[in-house]
């Protein structure tokens, strides 16, 4: 397969003309008024003693109302620090940056024009290693060993990587599927093969079966319409009842022999959606219902929107009440006025926001779950626990992948608040799962103050005996403008030991770090956000994906390039917890193939657990103090003396374990015991 890297050339003459005329304008006028825009930072200084760290978020939220700009938008950050922001190269700027994969010291960033590889060993100054022009959307990228896989779905992707697109509706030059590259020399990727699929590859997931060292498997998810049969033989979009070979209602599994990747081919098309039985649905979470009851008791204004009750924020109530009073021609509101206002509220809301308010109190049973999907958007594979989370149309699915060629469905959940299930993330121990709802497909502004917090959000489920049970939602808490595309998108766990902490992209809503250890009470603990790319109309931008990788947090910014962050200590996370997270080392990372985090036995791991037990009051203050002292004593000692201190401490901790946090005390005692046995 021919694989060259042609230089980018602007597609039209008019583009070139515009470029020069803009440069001229910039040159002419750009010299004046060059005052830097303010950077709003509310980050705690790391030098501060831990006692001063707060768990109170800045108020008002500094993310609201940030000024626009491409490379000079206003920024807000809390408990996280931007180390570097590297713009795309000339060949890639102005074209959508997509997903990320990591291998060794390299971050590979997909772009609708190809891929860029950065050396991130100095996170404050990543350096470009190579750029490879080979257009196809979405160019989602994965790695395994010396292989790199890239998704192609759009109509303009070519087998020969040409930039001219494919004009014909039916063409044998078109690539929609998976491209396979050899990256033995990452500076010079070699395009070795591809596998064409009927719906192209919107995303894909690489499965390394623990019991098979000779192959990897790629689960292909495609959501675009089926290709014509004239272009790719055997592609049919008839319903499976009419054509058993329909490309609908199935996923594709590609087998890649590691010794002969050029022989990669589709080996099965499992119909994991067949015979879906009605999964349970749910309405509001218990926490939401309790909040509503409390609000009602305190006299808050409550409206019913979209079949669900919502508390109307004061910033909406006050102006509405004022104009209501004005219309009545009265001054100070009386109790009677308030009552009248309460009754008129549904009409006012409908008029003001164009949103339908439910005036009936008709609490019928749910009409049942959304039925069968035709495809998955994304499948998160977690081979170490033998499970996958499939985000498939109107369903979130739990799959058994112990036989990689024949995944089977264990459970499926639907959610009346979820429009389009996008992706999944498991807790490290596999007992919890988070699904995202990419409502509006990522191109729409779904984080406005008027957009319900259950729509376009994350939903959390516990997994018990292969069944998922809904617990709560989490949505970016900062309202965004109507020119910022914003909805739940890609993220990964940060390996804070003993907790579920995740960093997640929200497109132009920025990135949000939240703790979902308590499934019923997820809470935001850090964030970074920029103002819109364009103040005047919706421009495509923001974080496509953000992942933790070996101590840093790397974000693929759709318009602005590659951002690298570090998490800062705060009232939520101690320095020891961050240091313990940073002891986890990965050789590579594809987030759609979740890897189990394993923490080496270190003193800082023990201290991280001590900090958590102090926070949760799982041990008494005196026990916390003495444990810290003993850990210091042990670290300062060696040989038999160290072993003795640690062995004694471990036994004391086991004796002290009680209450809700007993399990964590046992985890701490286990680390201390392992430290003892690891001491020479």
């Amino acid at each position, binding site marked *: 397969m021919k694989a060259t890297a042609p230089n980018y050339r602007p597609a*039209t003459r008019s*583009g070139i003309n*515009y*470029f020069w005329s*803009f*440069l001229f*304008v*910039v040159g002419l006028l750009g010299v004046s008024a*060059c005052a830097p825009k303010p950077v709003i930072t509310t980050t705690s200084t790391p030098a501060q003693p831990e006692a001063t760290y707060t768990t109170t978020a800045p108020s008002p939220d500094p993310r609201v109302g940030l000024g626009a*700009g491409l490379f*000079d938008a206003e920024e807000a950050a809390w408990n996280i620090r931007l180390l*570097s922001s*590297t*713009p*795309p*190269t*000339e*060949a890639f*700027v*102005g074209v*959508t940056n997509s997903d990320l994969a990591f291998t060794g010291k390299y971050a590979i960033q997909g772009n609708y024009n190809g891929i860029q590889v950065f050396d991130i060993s100095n996170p404050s100054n*990543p*350096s*470009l290693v190579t*750029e490879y022009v080979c257009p196809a*959307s979405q160019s989602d990228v994965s790695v395994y060993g010396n292989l790199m896989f890239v998704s192609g*779905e*759009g*109509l*303009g992707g070519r087998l020969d990587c040409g930039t001219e*697109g*494919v*004009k014909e*509706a039916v063409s044998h030059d078109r690539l929609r599927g998976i491209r396979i590259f050899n990256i033995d020399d990452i500076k010079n990727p070699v395009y070795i093969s591809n596998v064409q699929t009927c719906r192209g590859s919107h995303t894909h997931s690489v499965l390394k079966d623990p019991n098979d060292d000779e192959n990897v498997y790629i689960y292909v998810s495609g*959501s*675009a*319409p089926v290709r014509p049969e004239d272009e790719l033989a055997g592609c049919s979009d008839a319903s499976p009842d009419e054509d058993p070979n329909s490309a609908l209602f199935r996923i594709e599994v590609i087998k890649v022999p590691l010794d002969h990747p050029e022989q990669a081919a589709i080996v099965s098309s499992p119909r994991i959606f067949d015979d879906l039985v009605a999964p349970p649905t749910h309405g509001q979470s218990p926490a939401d219902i309790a909040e509503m009851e409390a609000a009602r008791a305190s006299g808050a204004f409550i409206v019913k929107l979209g*079949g669900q009750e919502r508390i109307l924020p004061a910033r909406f109530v006050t102006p509405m009440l004022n104009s209501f009073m004005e219309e009545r021609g009265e001054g100070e509101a009386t109790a009677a006025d308030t009552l009248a206002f309460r009754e008129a509220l549904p009409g006012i809301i*409908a008029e003001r926001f*164009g*949103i*339908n308010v*439910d005036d009936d109190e008709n609490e*019928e049973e749910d009409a*049942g*779950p*959304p*039925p*069968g999907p035709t495809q998955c958007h994304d499948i998160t594979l977690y081979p170490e626990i033998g499970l996958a989370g499939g985000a498939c*149309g*109107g369903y979130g699915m739990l799959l058994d992948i112990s036989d990689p060629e024949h995944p089977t469905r264990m459970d499926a959940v639907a959610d009346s608040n979820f*429009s389009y299930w996008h992706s999944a993330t498991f807790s490290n121990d596999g007992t919890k799962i988070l699904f995202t709802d990419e*409502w*509006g497909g990522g*191109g*729409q502004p*779904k984080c406005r103050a008027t957009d319900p917090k259950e729509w376009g959000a994350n939903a959390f489920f516990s997994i018990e005996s292969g069944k998922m049970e809904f617990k709560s939602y989490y949505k970016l808490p900062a309202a965004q403008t109507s020119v910022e595309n914003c909805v739940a998108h890609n993220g990964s766990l940060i390996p804070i030991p003993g907790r579920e902490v995740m960093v997640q992209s929200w497109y132009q809503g920025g990135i949000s770090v939240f703790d979902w250890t308590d499934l019923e009470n997820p809470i935001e603990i850090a964030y970074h956000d920029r103002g819109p790319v364009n*103040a*005047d109309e*919706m421009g495509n931008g923001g974080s496509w994906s953000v992942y933790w990788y070996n101590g840093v947090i790397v974000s693929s910014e759709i318009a602005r390039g590659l951002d690298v962050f570090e998490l800062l200590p705060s009232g939520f996370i101690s320095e020891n917890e961050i240091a313990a997270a940073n002891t986890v080392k990965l050789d590579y990372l594809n987030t759609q193939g979740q890897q189990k985090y394993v923490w080496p036995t270190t003193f800082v791991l023990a201290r991280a657990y001590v900090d958590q037990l102090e926070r949760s009051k799982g041990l008494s203050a005196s026990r916390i103090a003495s444990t810290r002292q003993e850990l210091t004593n042990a670290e300062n000692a060696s040989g038999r003396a160290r072993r003795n201190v640690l062995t004694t401490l471990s036994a004391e901790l086991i004796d002290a374990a009680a209450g809700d946090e007993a399990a964590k005390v046992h985890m701490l005692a286990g680390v201390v015991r392992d430290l003892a046995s690891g001491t020479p």
Partner: protein
Amino acid sequence: MSERHFRAQHYFLHTVVFLVLLVTSACRSTESITTDSAIKPSADTTADLEALYWARKDSARTLFTDADVEFMTGMIGHHAQALIMAGLAPTHGANTQIQTLCARIINAQQDEIATMQQWLRSRGQPVPEVQITGTTLIVHGAGEHVTRMPGMLTEKQIHELDDSQGADFDRLFLTYMIQHHRGATVMVDELFSKDGAGQDELAFKLASDINVDQITEIARMERMLRILSGKSPDH
């Protein structure tokens, strides 16, 4: 129902704003540029890179066909009729699930109408304006595109829906919205069957998203309809 307008912004104003943005962004420092000496781009500063960004965005707007324009123009009217249908739910005794579904349809399709209008506007094409008065839909500037769109309800069907209440409304709404959504997926299939269409990134994404969202919603509505008819939700 109140009258709703989706107004076109003046193209000239948009261009002026665009230039002002470019000028202010020329103030950016050049520190954060990272390049490898082996791959030396000619854009030496962030300002040059930003100029290239906007120029490329601009040139990408020339990659469209008549079929893309027809799709956007037609789909605006198609979506607008969905707003009318969904807007009837609160006053026609729809059940809670259909209220939720309708609120979502209104939110999603209003935003998509704005996206399609922006797509047309930024490509110098006529921008249809939607005017809804009760159950009457007037689309200004769409030519003959609106009434011919697949799946759209006839005037008789709209009136039939408007005359129904409660469970009758629920059943009719689902039946007609399934018909309406299926029409949208036919429009997407037709778009992609035309040479050169759907090459524009935004057009491809919007059409694919509409396709997948509405297929998901059709399946959801079919299940609701089966339950309303007293049948098992599954086949």
